[in-house]
Structures are given as structure tokens and as C-alpha cells.
């Protein structure tokens, strides 16, 4: 019986209902498309384009404490990782490669932040998978990590020479990341 309501109402009412129905279906489809394209891992960080919080933390190698401010004037890749993190293993070969690249450049350095970890486990990880040689800050209670809005590992931030976070990368850095993502920002200059 319900269809009579639509049918008998004349062409005008019929048109309105058709438009409403079409609009509803379109809205659902659009929301669906947006949802599908959303990478649930890629939660936009509000920290991008804001000053990076400085940290000073004990170094893994027992040397002087690692401080972000010390590298002001250079582009810094801050890489959050842990020996407990599986994806960090897959990321590691690229970090080794990137560390070599950083040694060649005067304007780019890497700092690792090893969080929720013990020095022994971290050292074992580096011994097994290769030590890229850059400074590693220890963050056993993940205070720095939370201060930097980190969800998991690996996550990386690119800080510009002025100390502003310019990019966040969630998940392992992929081969070619530096040329594809970092260089355009670095050559675009400081803001």
C-alpha cells in the first residue's frame, strides 16, 4: 500500500521524493568513498608546521645526552622506533642507506628515538640488523614519544633548520622516501 502514497501524489511530490532519495544515496556513496580512501593508520598530525618540542635524553651509546636543539640549522629526521617493533626491521635497511646519505650531506642528520625499550634490547637489535651510526636517544617511558604525538613505531618526523616540524611519516620509510618526500621540502626552502 505504501507505494500508493508516492504514486498518487502527483508529479510534483514524486519529483521531490526522487530527489531526496537520490541525494541520500549519493551522500552515502560519497561518505563511503571518503572512508575507503582514508588510511586508518594515517591520522593527520596537528604537530605539522608547528615548532618541534625539544628533548634531551640519554644516548644509547653512553655518550653525551642527545638533544634536538643541538642540530638546529640542519634538517633533522627524528625516527621513533623500538627493538620490539616488527615493521622497524623492514625499515632498517633503508635507514642504513639514509644514514650514509646523511653523512654525505651537510644539511641533513638523523636522530633515532628508541622508546619503551631497554638499552640491551636496542643494542642487540642494532648488532643484528646493522648500526646506522647516528645518535639514538633513549625514551624508556615513552615520554618524548607521547610529547611528539607518536602512536606506534616506526614513525618519523622531518624537522626543518628553524626547528619546525614539516612532515610526519607513519609507518616504515620506504626506499626513495628521501628523494620523493624530503628533498622537495628541503629544496623548497625554509618557511
Amino acid at each position, binding site marked *: 500500500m505504501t507505494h500508493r*502514497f508516492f504514486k498518487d*501524489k502527483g508529479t510534483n511530490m514524486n519529483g521531490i521524493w526522487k530527489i531526496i532519495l537520490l541525494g541520500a544515496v549519493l551522500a552515502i556513496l560519497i561518505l563511503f568513498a571518503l572512508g575507503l580512501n582514508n588510511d586508518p593508520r594515517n*591520522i*593527520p*598530525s*596537528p*604537530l605539522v608546521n608547528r615548532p618541534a618540542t625539544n628533548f634531551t635524553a640519554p644516548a644509547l651509546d653512553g655518550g653525551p645526552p642527545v638533544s634536538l636543539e643541538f642540530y638546529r640549522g640542519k634538517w633533522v629526521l627524528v625516527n621513533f622506533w623500538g627493538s620490539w617493533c616488527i615493521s622497524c626491521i623492514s625499515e632498517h635497511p633503508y635507514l642504513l642507506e639514509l644514514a650514509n646519505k646523511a653523512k654525505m650531506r651537510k644539511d641533513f642528520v638523523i636522530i633515532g628515538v628508541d622508546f*619503551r625499550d631497554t638499552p640491551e634490547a636496542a643494542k642487540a637489535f642494532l648488532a643484528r640488523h646493522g648500526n646506522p651510526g647516528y645518535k639514538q636517544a633513549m625514551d624508556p*617511558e*615513552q*615520554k618524548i*614519544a*607521547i*610529547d*611528539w*604525538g607518536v*602512536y*606506534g613505531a616506526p614513525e618519523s618526523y622531518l624537522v626543518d633548520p628553524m626547528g619546525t616540524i614539516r612532515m610526519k611519516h607513519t609507518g616504515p620509510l620506504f626506499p626513495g622516501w628521501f628523494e620523493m618526500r624530503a628533498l622537495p621540502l628541503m629544496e623548497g626552502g625554509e618557511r
Partner: protein
Amino acid sequence: MKFLLGVVLTFLLIAPLCVQAESRDEDPAEAMVRHIAKDLRCAVCQNQSVYESNSELAKDMLRIVRDKVMAGEKEAVIRDYFFQRYGDYIYLEPTTSGMNWILWGGPFLGLGIGGLALWAAMQSWRKRTLEASAKTQETTTVTDDTMKKRIQQEMDQVRM
């Protein structure tokens, strides 16, 4: 023996009440920690708050909340600390600012539109029912007359 049993049962009934009463005298700072942490999303869990979750991230976040409460920071400041770092996502309940009003207002708007549509539909149904019943009444009277005539005819025949 019965008396003893009664005492034991009474005790068993009352005991849980005492336990509950104990949790009511919670340290106000800890109550504040719970209040704040219950609203924060454990970012690595499925729809769990920082207070409820057992994940390492949530535990460390809870510790930070506790440290900040102990340091005497205000609730709004602590909430903002996490908001500045994790964005909107950190709140389990979306805030009522910006585009989020669609989330909050949408259902009521939909309910309103649905109510209006239902009202319009009911009006037209009522009209139709009234028209239909008027028509039925006409038909009934007609039938009644014909039927009476027919019955009369039959009766006449029988009498003859």
C-alpha cells in the same frame, strides 16, 4: 544452628556493600585522573579509553595524566596537552566545535525531517481513509436498498 546460618548469610550479604563503600572514598586526585583518562582514546586500541586499556601506550599516557594531575594542572590544560599532540582523534567523544556540529546536530535534524515527512504522510492517509469510508457508506446504502427489495420479492413469492 539456624541462627548461626542466618548470621553467616547476613554477613555475606553485607560484605559486598562494605567493598563498595571503600571504593567511594577514592582519592580526589585519582578520581580526576580517571575522569580525564576516560575521555581520552587509547590510540592503538579499538574504541577503548586510556583508562580502560592495558596497552603500553595507554599505560604511559595514564602515567602522564597522573603526573600532571599531581603537579596540579587543570583538567582543561591536560586535555589540551593531548589535543595539541594527537588532534581531535584523542577524544572518545567528538568536541562540539567546527565541522563536528554535523555529528551532533545531524541526528536531530534527520529526526525532525523524518517527523515532518511522517506527519505529511499521515495527513494524506487520513484524507484517503475518510474519502474511502464515505464511498463505502454510499455503496452500503445502495446495497441495502437492493437487498431489501430482493428480500421483499422473495417473501412475496413465498406468501403466494
